[in-house]
């Protein structure tokens, strides 16, 4: 049986004697007898060797694709070696929320640096120390905009369905109305939005690029939203906005997004990282942890959890959110990633994604019967119309390639990143060409 309890039988005896009881069970004297458990129906404990073989066997039941052309919210990007090397330091892995600032300056400073990098990236003023993922960040952002008069949340239909579903759940929780703004040719229907924006609307959430990969005219939509007196929330791909007009430039009040592309593995969907930034005006509404710069009693620069008056452990039912648990390691992962890439590397990544997606789209659409579904500019993802998406995807799977996400029988959402070499793309296109013959 495996165990991480260091104490020996003799030591337990000594401890019981000190306490003044005769068995450990005596310490459970307040547990009603009728519900005390006899035996857990679990397998027997195992040695480390056995556990490792069990778990390795499970890992081997998964298929690791050699090339991946699927995104849709989880992106296959290169993770520099320095990232894991830094974030696997035991101190960083095992430290908790830095309540004791004096012995936590390392993790506090790393969060402050993360907040700064994310603010730089989005072009907004302030950031929190991260949220669970991009979807819950979007939902929290919508909650930030609510006031007594304005309750309704508008969400573009062209957003990631998992994100939409999450916002919807949060809104239903808080009894907040939510309406979906329809999509037209792969982008938010501007006219519809315009009509839906009334004095009850608190905010509008759109994605950039959107779920279909399209780069919408965010500035334009933002102006509409602001004219109606609502807040403008952008959900953005963190690498894309190093190249594209950033949320700050588009006039966003809040920018959120899925931080997974910044150094986190695909990992069957988590842990990922929600980032969240806003204008100065909204900083006191930001949920979750925020680290701020201050000084210690000797005037030395130092960092501390701040604005805690918003938080649940002080405000309880009046808190701005219940977000609590620490995501510092994921935030640090993103920071080390951005430090390793630097501004130039981030832009290079973005450019590689864009160029390779463009090349792949061009090659795919050179196949008779396949064409791009939408006409706007795109970044790393695009949708093709094609005969029988299942045939295509099965043919690719047979060769160890994960094709795009089937949206329906006749359309596929493809994703191409810096991880896809020209050779991989060409090979994928050839297989598709054969499959649709």
């Amino acid at each position, binding site marked *: *049986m*495996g*165990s*991480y*309890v260091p104490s020996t039988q003799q030591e337990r005896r000594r*401890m019981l004697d000190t*306490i*003044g009881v005769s068995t450990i069970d005596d*310490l459970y004297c307040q547990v009603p007898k*009728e519900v005390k458990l006899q035996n857990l129906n*679990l397998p027997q404990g*195992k040695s480390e060797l056995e556990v*490792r073989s069990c*778990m390795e066997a499970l890992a081997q039941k*998964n298929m690791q694709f050699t090339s*991946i052309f*699927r995104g*849709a919210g*989880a992106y296959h990007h290169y993770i520099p070696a320095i990232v894991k090397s830094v974030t696997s330091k035991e101190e960083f*892995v*095992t430290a908790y929320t830095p309540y004791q600032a*004096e*012995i936590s*300056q*390392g993790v506090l*400073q*790393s969060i402050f640096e993360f907040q700064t*990098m994310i603010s*730089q990236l989005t072009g907004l003023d*302030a950031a929190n120390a991260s949220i669970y*993922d991009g*979807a819950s960040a979007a939902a929290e952002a919508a909650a930030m905009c609510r006031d007594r008069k304005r309750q309704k949340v508008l969400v573009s239909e062209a957003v*990631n369905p998992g994100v939409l*579903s*999450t916002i*919807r*759940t*949060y809104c239903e*929780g808080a009894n907040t109305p939510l309406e979906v703004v329809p999509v037209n040719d792969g982008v938010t229907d501007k006219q519809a939005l315009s009509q839906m924006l009334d004095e009850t609307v608190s905010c509008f959430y759109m994605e950039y690029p959107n779920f279909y990969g399209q780069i919408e005219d965010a500035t334009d939509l933002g102006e509409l939203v602001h004219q109606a007196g609502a807040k403008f929330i952008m959900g953005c791909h963190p690498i894309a906005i190093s190249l594209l007009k950033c949320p700050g430039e588009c006039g966003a009040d809040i920018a959120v997004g899925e931080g997974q592309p910044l150094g986190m*593995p695909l*990992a*069957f*969907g*988590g842990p990922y990282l929600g980032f969240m930034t806003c204008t100065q005006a909204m900083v006191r509404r930001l949920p979750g942890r925020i*680290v*701020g710069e201050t000084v*210690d009693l000797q005037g030395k620069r130092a960092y501390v959890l701040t604005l805690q008056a918003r938080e649940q452990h002080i405000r309880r039912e009046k808190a701005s959110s*219940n*977000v609590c*648990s*620490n995501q*510092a390691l994921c935030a640090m992962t993103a920071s080390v990633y951005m430090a390793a*890439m*630097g501004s130039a590397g981030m832009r290079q*990544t973005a450019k*590689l994604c864009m*160029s390779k997606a463009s*090349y792949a789209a061009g090659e795919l659409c050179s196949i008779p019967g396949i064409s791009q579904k939408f006409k706007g500019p795109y970044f790393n993802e695009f949708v093709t119309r094609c005969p029988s998406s299942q045939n295509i995807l099965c043919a690719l*799977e047979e060769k160890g390639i994960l094709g795009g996400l089937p949206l329906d029988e006749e359309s596929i959402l493809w994703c191409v990143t*810096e991880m896809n070499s020209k050779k991989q793309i060409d090979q994928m296109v050839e297989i598709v060409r054969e499959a649709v013959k």
Partner: protein
Amino acid sequence: MKLIFERSQEGRGCSILPACDVPEVDCSPEISRKAPLHLPQIAEVDISRHYTELMKQTHGVNDGFYPLGSCTMKYNPKINEEIAALPGFSKIHPLQPSHTAQGCLEVLGLAEKYLCEITGMDHMTFQPAAGAHGEFTGLLLIKAYHKSRGDTARTKIIVPDSAHGTNPASAVMAGFTVVNIPSGEDGCVDLEKLRQAVGEDTAGLMLTNPNTVGIFDKNILEITKTVHDAGGLNYYDGANLNAVMGVVRPGDMGFDVVHLNLHKTFSTPHGGGPGSGPVGCKELLSAFLPSGHVSCEEDGTYGFDAPSPRSIGSVKNFYGNFLVVVKALTYILTLGREGIKEAAQNAVLNANYLMARLSDLYDMPYAGPCMHEFVMSLEPLKKEKGVTAMDIAKALLDHGIHPPTMYFPLIVHEALMAEPTETESIDTLDGAAQTFREIYQQALDNPQSLHDAPVSTPVRRLDEVGAARNPKPTYSF
């Protein structure tokens, strides 16, 4: 310490990506970013040194005793990390076809089966990413349940005043009104007050048991029955499950829904090693579970349940913090049937031992055996010598011990809540007891020295008020 931006130098960097091997596409000017982008430009050697500096100013479990009450800072076994890093888990896309992700699905399936057994629940979702996220999810299940029965008047959640702050905050997020009930003298639920509070508007009760003063509520069956009888449901906040797993199950105590903190009870790191707050429920709530629930066919293949029309939807994208679940499953397989109980028993033993070693000096407001943690009150010392819980905590920093949780629960004045966990040896506990005792003596002899603490840390007490008044959450370039 320099900030990483202060180590940056235009033109430096790492060589991570290759040149483009397809025709380069330019972003058209109207959609191009013009805003400057100040990310660090820094060589790998300096990244390594920067984070080494930060590491040296970060106290982890590997640095020493970390009895932070209510947080269960137990040791995080290394095998868990190795398993979670296997490419066969870390490189799997969440939207791969199910037949190519059978290993991941089986992980979720097994974890659900074992955790349901431990909690006495029937089903479980792993979507919630943290404890509070789980509370929110669990409360939405309760809400959906009442709604499905047309029982829409049930809008109130009863929360004892000793509860974690997340409980009322989550209740509000889920659209409920919070009814606070005061605790009795023993820190437990005041049965009388509870009876007065329940009624036709009661959606449910949220309870931590053992509670936040470290006491197992002996009236637990009475409590849950009272709520059930009034038509409400019982929510178990699993934050303190480490005291009782293998000993008694929330499901058997009358709870209908429970969240777990895998990063507390199941040895997956908190660090930032992000959390996981799975929610288990009884059959009556299963139809409302969030999307992405794993199903197992008779032939042993795994898949996802068809979307339920009554599901509460999603609380995040995909299926939760999968790699955290991998670590928790690794831990459960390691401990197994007897080990789970052994862990709980020794968590309780360690807490009682440390309490016994200190109770002649420190005021213990609650008598009798504690569970996995205990609360001290520094109120007498404050009255006598002006030394606060904060002072004691800061003095501990100079001894390399992470202080207990300060000023929680709110119902105890000048509280320090210590949770040693089962992974500490008697040597460590004896060392800590010695330190606590010395500091107590120091408080009597030289109170000022405690107001001055810490003296050996890289920075001393911080100006928190200034930080909040003029928030500076980013570096100014």
